[in-house]
């Protein structure tokens, strides 16, 4: 009975739990609710994924209203995978959050933090699950508004400016997206995605549809931090509370990329995107420039959180590069990197959160000699870093492998070379941290740090081990990504 409503529950559970947190008005109960809901969300996401893989696309009519008029939730292997990523990250981040929240946020705001956290989760899951174009905008705003709140709760004053900047920039992006959806509605008279997909063919060559396509891709480009629209991201990630950085870095941009995939491939269709527009060329150029510019910038950052934030911009470049090949292999690489990057960045930001918890800073000079003082935390960072670089046996290698394979498949040698070259840049910035932590003596005037508490270490290491597990056994992740790529390209699945 309840199984039929999993699709709705996926979004409704955190949505209802958010006001519940406000009513509780206490930090710890609100935290427990958040953890419970995150785990429930994960369980539901796994159920949905199994169901989709077994029986194909699930369509759920919200409130019983039939599809073109009512809101439809539509789950196929693409968004089932995204739901798994978002809820999975939330399921490890929520238990992790408590210690860092106590440290970083005034006590009277704890319950508000968890309420905002759950709303953000609602928004992210909602974007992924919905089959209604306007509904995407609604959830986009829910997740964005709550993430502005979450970022502004950061312990440094700069967090406020960062959140404000993100608010303005994010609103521009959302507005562009809405304009695009509005234009589509004007041309097709429907907001249901499946419906739009069938009706767009007839009006495909009008300038209105072209404009809609441009507005949507640019608007989403901003939300997913496409270079050079990434300017909001470094500060937002760097100054947000530790747990928020983990959640956003591992999920927010991925959901935006998913939305772009959905609109480009399912709504407009890859033929339209390839033949009529220059999306592939634009994406590839910007992705490659982004990978290099952001990686090089990361090398020179002294705030390690900011360093990893720039690295995230570069990693988004890899995902978009995979998309820009417009081939099954390329898309598989891009989609599997959504998952893999969530694993590696989640682990890295969690390790940094643990460092921040003990030191109150993630400046690279403060991390000198930390390898001896916080061995488990720093070793987790090193392993996460190796995954980011793309060492074999880690998830990073799997992503790079598919990207390179996709480049070679098209015979684009230089691009395969650039992918390899850019990995070296990741070696450089990760090495800066390793060198500081393991080969430098700690500054004498700082007190010695002790190892992070288990409450922080356990979630960190779960993600670190996931980096290796999914780097060796790729049947689940690559299998789903491959399936998703075929669904998107319309070649079966």
């Amino acid at each position, binding site marked *: 009975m309840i199984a039929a409503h999993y699709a709705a529950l996926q979004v409704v559970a955190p949505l209802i739990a958010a006001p519940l947190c406000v009513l509780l008005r206490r930090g710890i109960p609100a935290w427990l609710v958040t953890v419970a809901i995150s785990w429930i969300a994960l369980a539901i996401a796994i159920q949905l994924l199994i169901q989709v893989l077994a029986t194909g696309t699930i369509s759920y009519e919200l409130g019983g209203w039939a599809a073109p008029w009512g809101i439809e939730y539509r789950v196929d292997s693409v968004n089932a995978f995204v739901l798994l990523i978002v809820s999975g990250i939330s399921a490890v981040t929520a238990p992790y959050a408590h210690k860092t929240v106590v440290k970083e946020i005034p006590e009277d705001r704890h319950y508000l933090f968890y309420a905002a956290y759950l709303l953000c989760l609602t928004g992210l899951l909602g974007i992924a699950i919905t089959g209604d174009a306007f509904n995407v905008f609604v959830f986009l705003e829910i997740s964005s508004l709550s993430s502005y709140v979450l970022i502004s709760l950061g312990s440094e004053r700069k967090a406020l400016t960062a959140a404000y900047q993100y608010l303005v*920039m994010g609103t521009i992006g959302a507005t562009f997206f809405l304009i695009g959806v509005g234009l589509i509605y004007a041309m097709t008279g429907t907001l249901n995605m499946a419906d739009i997909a069938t009706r767009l063919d007839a009006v495909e060559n009008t300038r209105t549809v072209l404009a809609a396509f441009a507005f949507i891709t640019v608007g989403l480009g901003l939300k997913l931090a496409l270079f050079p629209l990434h300017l909001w991201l470094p500060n937002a990630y760097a100054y947000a509370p530790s747990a928020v950085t983990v959640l956003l870095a591992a999920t927010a941009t991925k959901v935006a990329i998913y939305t772009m995939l959905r609109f480009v491939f399912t709504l407009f269709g890859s033929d339209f995107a390839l033949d009529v527009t220059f999306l592939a060329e634009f994406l590839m150029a910007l992705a490659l420039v982004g990978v290099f510019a952001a990686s090089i910038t990361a090398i020179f950052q002294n705030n390690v959180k900011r360093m990893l934030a720039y690295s995230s911009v570069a990693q988004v470049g890899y995902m978009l590069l995979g998309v820009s090949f417009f081939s099954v292999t390329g898309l598989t690489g891009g989609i599997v990197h959504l998952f893999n990057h969530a694993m590696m960045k989640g682990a890295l930001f969690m390790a940094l959160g643990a460092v921040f918890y003990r030191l109150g800073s993630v400046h690279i000079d403060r991390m000198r000699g930390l390898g001896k003082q916080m061995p488990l935390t720093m070793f987790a960072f090193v392993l996460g870093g190796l995954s980011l670089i793309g060492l074999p046996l880690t998830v990073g290698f799997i992503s790079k*492998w598919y990207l390179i394979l996709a480049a070679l498949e098209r015979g684009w040698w230089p691009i395969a070379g650039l992918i390899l070259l850019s990995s070296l840049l990741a070696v450089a910035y990760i090495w800066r941290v390793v060198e500081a932590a393991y*080969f430098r003596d700690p500054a004498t005037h700082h007190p010695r740090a002790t190892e992070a508490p288990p409450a922080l270490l356990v979630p960190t290491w779960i993600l670190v081990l996931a980096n290796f597990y999914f780097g060796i056994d790729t049947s689940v992740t690559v299998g789903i990504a491959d399936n998703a790529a075929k669904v998107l390209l319309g070649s079966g699945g």
Partner: protein
Amino acid sequence: MTASEFAHSIPPGFVLLIGAGLVPLLRGRLRDAYLLMLPVVGLLHLVSLETGSYVQTSVLSLEIIVLRVDQIALIFGYIFYIATFVSVIYALHVKRAFEHVAALTYAGSAIGAVFAGDLITLFVFWELTAVTSVFLIFGRQTPRAYRAGMRYLVVQIGSGVLLLAGTILHYLDTNSVEFGHLGIVSPATTLIFIAFGVKCAFPLLHNWLQDAYPEATVTGTVFLSAFTTKLAVYALARGYAGTEMLVWIGATMTAFPIFYAVIENDLRRVLAYSLNNQLGFMVTGIGIGTEMALNGTISHAFSHILYKALLFMSMGAVLYRVGTIKGSELGGLYKSMPWTATFCIVGAASISAFPLFSGFISKALIITAAAENGYFITWLILLFASAGVFHHSGIKIPYFAFFAHDSGKRCEEAPRNMLVAMAIAAALCIGIGVYPHVLYSILPFPVDFQPYTPTHVLTQLQLLLFSALAFAVLIRTGVYPPELKSTNLDSDWLYRRLGPLAVGAVLRRVDHAAGLLKNGAKTQLKELVDGISRHHGPEGAMARTWPTGATALWVAILLGAFLVASFYV
């Protein structure tokens, strides 16, 4: 699955790789026992494997053969385990667990690589050997070692990247990643060849070896000397047997390190050069590619690992006790370390290929194969190189460390575990030399070769005795200066008489010129980095916190560009 089936599904390297995980949890005698047990268990496991058993899986739609057992893999597996066992004994006194873990995982990776049946698995272990072994260099904990370790790591990882690139291309060419005979036939196999060549320290690709090995810890160098380069020899033998080019590469490798070894003062670096020279013999054998030559290469790798480890162990013991390994500061140590001196001489005799020592029975195969297959010039070079080896490894090493002018240094004999390790290695060196047929019987091809014929023995003895005579005359006439305080032995006029110095001086000049170029490049590089830093640094344009308007502007630009392109192009 029965127990034996289960045992057969474990790739041999995993015994050490997984076993190493427990080392940090153990202390004292228990840890010693555990460390000694691991290679023994591994070796027993290896012996129980039957040729041809495979562990296959499919990853990323590739056919992965994690375990492939054949004669050539087995023999490398045996010697790698024996080397691990000896080296572990030698390193037993080391307190820090991470050095043991690094050494065991390094050995495990090398063994895993030998049993890899496909290029992907090979690549994974290839990189693992690099990543694990670098800690044996870092373990010295000096800034010099740190820098040398970084350079080593860059080269080794680079070799792995080349291998991966070659593998991907090879897969696209042939739709297979199986690691069998490759040959230089396509860009893909050329890349793989270069990757192997880097690890095998081909001429001009060799610098990492002499750079890094002498900077590693006392015990680390012993491990390093055994695995990395021999893994490359194995890979070349499997993939590129009979590639003509290797004959010349190998011949060059045997000859040119001799000049460097002669002018070098750091005795462990001398050994690193002679390691390179020994690799040359093996590479030549691979290039000749006949059954006899390959047998020679493999048996030479087998005995080489033992005597080279023995030499590095004896020099390591000196470094451990005296605190320096500079030839000019040592001398007369035979009084303090008689056992170490004896073992060192056994190693020296083996590397110089004295009859009844291991080097003799393996090197002879390669040299004979060169002669029989009409490589006359190569044959001459190999003979010259043999004499050279005797000079710098056979005489120079023991002479400067243990005899020569008494440095007045008095120290204790090497620790007991080191002596035991050296004794085992020395016994094996002699054992192989006296009973060559034991080694011959496990070689991949049938051996129809009799090392102890009058011709072989006499030729070799002539070569050695005349070398020794020359040395003795020089010492007697006092031309060989007893004191060498300068670290630049090459400035010594004596060596000019022997000839090599002329080459040495030229090489120094070249080095000097290269140094000038390097400095020029350094300034250029610094300017480049400064430039990048200006734009990408924390306050640079790329990293600055931009006003919100900048994003709005970019959004407008992108939208405009996109629309213009879509509408009008």
